[in-house]
């Protein structure tokens, strides 16, 4: 069963760089980073973070109180941006509530709520009463919440493959539409700051004490961020950019470091180009994974230098909002779609002197030009890789 391109009829994102497409586009254009000094939790480690302001003061509306937690508040912010809820509801009314699937990605979902419960256990060692809500202590908290908000009743799945999660959702949704299980799908991802990731990445010595500098020769590691993003995929629509293809693979190498030659990344890339029936020379823009970790950037730079012509413009946008982990796939998909829609190619913020491994493709400065095809790379823990191919509306 051959895959066919799908229209993306709505998309949005919310991160430290901005709430919604216009704010994000402005931040990209003006090279304004949303990274700030880490002030998360009672004993913050020395690093910078991409924190979305105001979540603490914005509980979910009463009817969704059961799902209330930082991660779902961030999901709600994302759903409210750019009229995404209205677009999804219109699709629901067009196709039927059972015909619009929900496939969303996260790495830690609402584990932050469980972390909080452990700091406020009662005398018997039980959860405090306000957090005895099972749905927010399981990974599917996110998918269940999104389905509930949008009034959908069909398939709802949460994908959790670390940093490739919300890229792989496009592939899974495409398969659901191709096989006729759904006519449209809400895809996306949400990850929020929590102790697990801040102290966890710190224990692996992967976080930087300064603002992250992707592909810089003196990069010191990653900055963690939080974000939400969503896209609506439809089989039948008359306008909107295209999901042209995707490629998935894994490294079979190590749980927390990439394959030294980027074996899995190359496979995912080749698979994605094959499905989209494109050659590397057709690719105008690549939004790289570019976390600013030593290993990722070194391997990724080599892959890009080996496989693409000098005319391909490649960059990492992590300097704007940090590494948003399970949301990175959708955030960077949305930035690739903004690049296609608004002729803005963001450079690599905070990179001063590029690593010698970088080829001519990797750019520090922004550029403005009309483009037709964009790729987004996402590579995760456990060696999980996903590459997405997007095309301009035509």
């Amino acid at each position, binding site marked *: 069963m051959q895959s066919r391109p799908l229209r993306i009829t709505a998309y949005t994102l919310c991160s430290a760089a901005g709430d919604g497409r216009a704010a994000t586009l402005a931040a990209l254009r003006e090279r304004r980073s949303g990274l700030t000094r880490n002030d998360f939790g009672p004993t913050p480690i020395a690093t910078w973070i991409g924190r979305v302001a105001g979540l603490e003061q914005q509980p979910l509306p009463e009817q969704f109180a059961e799902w209330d937690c930082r991660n779902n508040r961030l999901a709600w912010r994302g759903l409210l941006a750019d009229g995404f809820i209205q677009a999804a509801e219109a699709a629901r009314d067009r196709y039927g509530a059972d015909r619009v699937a929900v496939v969303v990605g996260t790495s830690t979902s609402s584990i932050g709520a469980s972390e909080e419960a452990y700091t406020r256990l009662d005398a018997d060692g039980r*959860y405090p009463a306000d957090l005895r809500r*099972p749905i927010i202590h399981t990974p*599917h908290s996110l998918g269940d919440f999104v*389905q509930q908000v949008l009034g959908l009743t069909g398939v709802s799945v949460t*994908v959790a*493959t670390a940093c490739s999660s919300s890229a792989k959702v496009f592939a899974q949704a495409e398969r659901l539409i191709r096989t006729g299980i759904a006519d449209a799908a809400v895809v996306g991802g949400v990850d929020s700051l929590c102790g697990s990731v801040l102290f966890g990445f710190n*224990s692996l010595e992967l976080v930087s004490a300064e603002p992250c500098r992707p592909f810089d020769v003196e990069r010191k590691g990653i900055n963690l961020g939080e974000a939400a993003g969503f896209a609506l995929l439809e089989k039948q629509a008359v306008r909107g950019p295209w999901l042209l293809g995707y490629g998935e*693979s894994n490294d079979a190498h190590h749980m927390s470091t990439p394959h030294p030659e980027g074996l899995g990344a190359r496979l995912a890339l080749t698979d994605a180009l094959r499905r989209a029936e494109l050659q590397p020379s057709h690719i105008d823009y690549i939004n790289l994974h570019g976390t600013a970790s030593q290993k990722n950037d070194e391997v990724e730079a080599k892959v890009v230098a080996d496989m693409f012509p000098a005319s391909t413009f490649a960059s990492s946008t992590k300097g704007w909002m940090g590494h948003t982990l399970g949301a990175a796939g959708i955030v960077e998909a949305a930035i690739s779609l903004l690049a296609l829609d608004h002729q803005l190619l963001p450079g690599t913020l905070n990179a001063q002197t590029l690593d010698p491994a970088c080829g001519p493709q990797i750019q520090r400065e922004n550029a403005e030009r009309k483009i037709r095809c964009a790729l987004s790379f996402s590579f995760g823990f456990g060696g999980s890789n996903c590459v997405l191919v997007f095309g301009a509306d035509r």
Partner: protein
Amino acid sequence: MTLRVAIEGVSFWASRLPGWDIAQAVIRGEQAPPEAPSARPAPTLLAPTERRRAPDTVAVALEVAGRACEASGRKPSDLPSVFASTHGDTAISDYMCATLAGTPTLISPIKFHNSVHNAAAGYWSIGTGSLAPYTAISASQYTFAAGLLEAATQVVCEHRPVLYVVFDIESKGPLATVAASRGLFGAALVLAPPAQQQRTLILTTETVSSLDPTVARSAAAPLVADNAMAPCLPLFEVLAYSSPRTVRMCLSRSTALNVQVN
């Protein structure tokens, strides 16, 4: 829509049903379940130093994944895979939450990288050298049905066999009161494009006003009933017999997944 896939391999592991042969015999009423629970399976795919410290999730997932591949005669490294778990590694989540509440800077880096939902899938791919894509999903009480559907759509879309692995472990600590699951459990299937002489599954989704899933009734049912993955048991009860039957599972609040086993 209808998805048709062949079933090439089945495996099953619970502490009192340690293997598909025993589970089948207990389901059919041919033997009583062993009185004593078995020790957790050894993840022999891993390097000897890693075997002992492997989390239960990884140990049980690698066991059932390997057995299903053996039963199918397929080479593990050739198969894309779908890993599904309702709650993931709740033992590590309990450790992470407890450590963060007390001494956050002492988080173990190994526990942290094992805390990802795709840890079992990652170890499987490393152990087998498989570069074929895997995914790791969760969908609360609908996890088994959602994962089965994803595995079947991969078979149909990509015309290649796919390994489907499910597991849930015993929840620990305060987390166990909100993410309940008892015992160690895993099961796996190898699904493939249909060919002659093989059992097939025909999957259809159906919008329903009230869900009436098939209920597990065999002597195996009480042995896994408290595990979060228990909704998978009715399918395995049908697979234990050679006669055709249809199993109805819940895919969402108002969607059923009907699986006709031929």
